[in-house]
């Protein structure tokens, strides 16, 4: 629940963890992102034109990483697009508020709600409201999972009005300049029932993400997991073969994320075959015969 991140600021020196106000969460270090096509240019242009963005693509292909990267890039001090945050002028960089959608995510989860506070009630902004106010990038992951009433909120925010109605308080909030709504969804993954409505999807420009081509994927896996080049190449080859099995017993091909996990295990000294079994065969399916088939591919590729 978004509220959970809403805890008070903790002294980062004495505590073993970092906690941020959502508006203050910025990406300060450059996330590794290997552009496959012109996605950076398109996204930047959309941002400048205040056009909301829809990212499509299978799980673990780098959608979230791309948004993080863009948040960092757009928040860079030298970046010309940065116009500052009205609410928190001290905060450096571009705030990024990520909301994972689930089937019980309601409008009030996004906008905010009244809480009991002693004898009274207190209004607490939801993450979307805060993003609108802070001019942050609000990333709604797997948006089709959310309940239908959330899309009602999105509509006025995503056209020329850029308004967020806060019904319960009788307010309408105008989005800050830097605000950008980014949503993602996985077309293959959801059932037909949960498809995005045309009235919603036509408010976004859409960018299709695929798993990167073999060479690039190998480079990504190598960089992210610290595995050696040979094994990174083999992992990318494995991915290519396993993805052939999509619709032939597998719902989804293996994600780049899983490959990185496999690479992580390998670089920690786990044998490549075992690492792939754990991170690919077992992770992808519970069907023993499918697992076996994938394992056979793994044992063919890895010594």
């Amino acid at each position, binding site marked *: 629940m978004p509220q959970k991140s809403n805890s008070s600021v903790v002294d980062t020196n004495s505590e073993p963890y970092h906690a941020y106000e959502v508006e203050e969460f910025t990406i300060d270090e450059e996330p590794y992102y290997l552009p496959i096509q012109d996605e950076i240019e398109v996204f930047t242009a959309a941002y400048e034109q205040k056009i909301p963005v829809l990212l499509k693509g299978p799980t673990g292909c780098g959608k979230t990483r791309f948004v993080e990267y863009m948040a960092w890039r757009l928040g860079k001090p030298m970046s010309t697009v940065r116009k500052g945050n009205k609410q928190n002028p001290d905060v450096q960089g571009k705030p990024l508020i990520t909301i994972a959608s689930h089937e019980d995510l309601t409008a009030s989860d996004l906008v905010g709600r009244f809480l009991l506070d002693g004898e009274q009630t207190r209004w607490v902004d939801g993450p979307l409201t805060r993003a609108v106010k802070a001019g942050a990038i609000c990333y709604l992951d797997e948006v089709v999972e959310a309940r239908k009433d959330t899309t009602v909120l999105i509509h006025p925010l995503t056209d020329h009005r850029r308004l967020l109605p806060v019904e319960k308080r009788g307010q309408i909030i105008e989005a800050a300049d830097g605000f950008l709504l980014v949503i993602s969804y996985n077309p293959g993954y959801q059932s037909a029932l949960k498809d995005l409505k045309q009235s919603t999807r036509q408010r976004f420009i859409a960018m299709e993400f695929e798993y990167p081509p073999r060479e690039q994927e190998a480079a990504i896996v190598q960089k992210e997991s610290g595995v050696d080049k040979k094994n990174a190449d083999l992992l990318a080859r494995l991915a290519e*073969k396993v993805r052939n*099995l999509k619709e032939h017993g597998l719902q989804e091909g293996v994600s780049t994320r899983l490959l990185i996990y496999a690479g992580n295990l390998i670089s920690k000294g786990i044998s490549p075959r075992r690492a792939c079994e754990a991170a690919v065969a077992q992770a992808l399916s519970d069907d023993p015969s499918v697992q*076996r*088939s*994938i394992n056979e591919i793994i044992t*063919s590729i*890895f*010594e």
Partner: protein
Amino acid sequence: MPYTSQEEQIEALSQEIQALPVSVSQIFSQVNGEAQKRFIDVENYLLWLQDALEISRSSFRAWEATAEYFRATIEILNNIDKQEEFALWAEGGKRLCSTSAPIAASYFKSSEAFLNEHNMNDLKQWINAGESLYHGTWKSGALATKFFETSPSLLLEFTIERLLQYVAILDSVAGNSSEMAEECLLLARESFSLVEKESTEGYLKLLSSTVNNNWKYTKDTQRSAALALPRIARHERARYMDLAAKMADERGKRYLIFLNEGSKSFGEVTYDVHTKMLDMFENLYSISPEAAVEFVHSCPEIIRRVGISNIDKWYESGLPMLQQNEAAGLGFFRLESARGESLIDQISATVNLEDIAPILQMYARGLTGGDMQLRSVTELKERTLGWAREEKASTDGSNIFLPDEISSFPTKNENFSWFKVLCSHQTGHLEFMSFNFDFEKEGNVFGIKRVVTEAAKLETDEDSVALVLSEFERFFDLFPQRKLSSDIYQALEDARIDHLTRQSYAGLRDPYRLVQGAATMGRPSPQNLPLREALVELLIRMTLLERDATIPVPRNLRSVVNNMAATLDKLMDLNALPEDTAEACLIIYKLLIKVPNTPPPTDMDWDETQIGELSEDGTSEIQEADSASVGGQDMVPGSGTEDDVEYKPAEDVDYRGDFKPELVQTLANLRKGQQQTDEMTKSPPLTEEMIKQLLEKSAEIDLSSVVDGNIDDPSGLFISSLMSESIEGPDAEFKDESGPGGIGKEEVESEEELAEQPQTSLYSEWDFVALDYKPNWCRIHESVIAEGSIDFYQETVDKYAGLINEVRRQFEMMVPETYRKEKRLPDGEEFDLDAAIEYVVEKRAGAAPDEKIYWRRNKTQRDVAVIFLLDMSASTAEAIDEKELKALNDDDDDVPEDPKQYLYWLKSRREKANRSYRRIIDLEKESTVLLIRALETIGDTYGIYGFSGYGRDNVEFYTVKDLEEPFSDKVQRRIDGINPLHATRMGPAIRHAAEKLDSVEAKTKVLFLISDGRPQDRGYSREGAEKEYAVQDTHMALLETKSKGIIPFLLTVDRAGHDYMKEMCGDLPYEVLADINLLPKRLPQLYSRLTL
């Protein structure tokens, strides 16, 4: 005697003999002269005549014996050493004749054959033996006669002592049945000829055991045992007979099974395991004779499946089972136990394609990215498509064909590796694009020379082919020696594929090494081949072996081999394309064509040379010098061809299987052509002429192997199958519906046929005594029920109009419940007022408040799939009212005493009886109609099926309405088609229904079984637990259903159902309906309760 002189006596006797019937006197005249000469002593001659007369007088019709006596005389005289012995012979005859003339006749007739082999001492015993069979009856006489007829030939097989034993046996049999004894005797020659001398004793012992215990089986035993013996290892025959005799002593017919089927089993396995088998048999026999017999019966299959070395393991696992639970052990040794099956799988090293096809198919799809189908080579054979050679792996671009099983290695893993290598090699052809050859495309390694060569060829050769069906055809047209070029190309391309596969799949290197190493074994030795073939063989070996392995190289051809190795080496490049293979093929072809294909001179020097070394010394560039002058001349065989033998294609490498690039590409092109018939320009239309031409040219198709038998024009058949192939596409003959692992006969049927023909599926059955499943025990035949009249449906709807409305209302009420309010949640839409107040109160009171103060509407969408399974057994034909009548009859005490009243009572009773009665099934049907009406209102997925059947092989499963089928008037008519049929085998029907439910997606799944009594069927029982078995299997089937997440519910209208329902259902829900008339009303009620 009044006569004094011998002459007078002779004269008198002769006359007397002449007076005998003509047949006798004739023979007498024939032999008399000779006999007179042969009897040196007149006394003896006189005696001869006297004996003859004595015989003829001994009984009525004894003249026949006399005739035989005369007829045999000369031969006997030839056979005996002393004339006195003749008297002995005659004496025996006279004795026999005094008892029975026919016996004597038979004796005289056979004695010559007897005396050929035996002496006079034996003769006495022989006569005694024959005599002992005669007990004064006509039948025993006939037996004795037969004995004399047949025994001389029997004595060829064994000694007189054995014969006497056998006669004793025969005599005992004859004591019971002379016919049987006679039949035995008739069979004896045939039987005994199969029995060896050493085994005779045991054989006779077995026979005498049989006679003592089961004389009726004597003949069967005699024959079976004789047939059995040769099947048993020689040194174990005596023991085998002993065992059989021991079994025979214990009575029963089992030993006959042991002799018949048992010996066949022995015959099917090699002699060396016989001792072990008999050891095991004896051991088992002491525990359970039945299991022992089953064991022998199963042995050949077990040995085939797990190998001889593993039979101990199997036996030792079965033994404790048998000791603990005879039924379980019996099932195990009968191979009817699921536990046994899994054990066999475990210990068997054989890998069956069937088991691994789904895995490898997916593997192949992963590797190639195509929609590959994995099939058995036997399917390929049936297509008679040029590949029809023995069990070789192959691919046609969209199917991969693999052998049915591999058992060449000692472990399962190794055998599986072999499969994997086979499969990887075939996928390699696709992954590395063997079939994408383009004649004009440049290779990555060698550059292009094909076009040059073609041009050169065209210059010299005028009648070149204008139209080609494939790029490969164009390429192979370059070579006058097509077979040679095809061999070279295949070896090189396979090598390229192997190299690329091994480079890309490091994990396959080890299994590859294993398989490639094994592949060189059993290949022809190059030293024995004509030179050109030897070089091809060397090339193949180079492609199989590691660089540090050695091959024999003919010293004077060293440079050719060097260059071959160098060319091969150059092709082993990660960037090599099939076009490069073609170039390499050109180069090597030119090298080899200059080598005469003559048998190697005996003094030829062969050096074992390392392959790596060879390529270092060679060069693939030699052709560069030639390339300027590449001409057609290069391509024809060199000079010195006098001793040349015709080039024979090289032997295929096992694991590489058949590689037919030309054929595959041709087929692909033909199909393409078929698809785009408009664009005639692109691919030429297929004519028989063209195919014929292709067939004649191509080295890939061996027509003689395509068609066995004497069809005049094999190419015709081939053409037609090729044509149909090209028209219907690769899958035309497979019609694969089953997706992965599409192997098996059933899939071959087309969809149309399936609708009409009943589908069948197999189910295991639970044996509660053995505590194990009997695998694939019952066969379900599924079919759509015959349609009846639609009236039934309409009538029922009218009849129950009121009830239908009521039920419908009841069901409609269920629908709004799709949204249910859930209270007391930590988070939700709104505060739950009650909980919130409680929260505040508690907080004020200083207690820890419960934070669950929200409520939320939860979507509980109704998502139900249900199957109604109706009992269609014969008992459902029972009239409901008759049952009531019976109940009435039971309390007869209120029968009126008064005659007038009695008449009235009787009349009313008769009226009741005559009323058109309703059957149980009618109520079942009516209930179904009601349910359908109700179910259609709430939109649940439902199926209605009926079941019945007879025997385990014939469980009928009728579809009234399939789960996914929409309701229609067809369904209405089918309801009327529900009729009482045969028995009730519930288990398989439940399993089949559960299987159907399992295949649909639904949150709630219900299997609703409506029955009228206990499950019963032929063979749905076992000894000692007739009813229990069926109940237990049904129980198990219900449990299986439950474990699939399906709610089983049993409703019975059998009022006596309580006694077994408890046991059958355990803690699963069931209901016994007290009044069957309540069924239509109760069913919807139960349903709504079950699915809420």
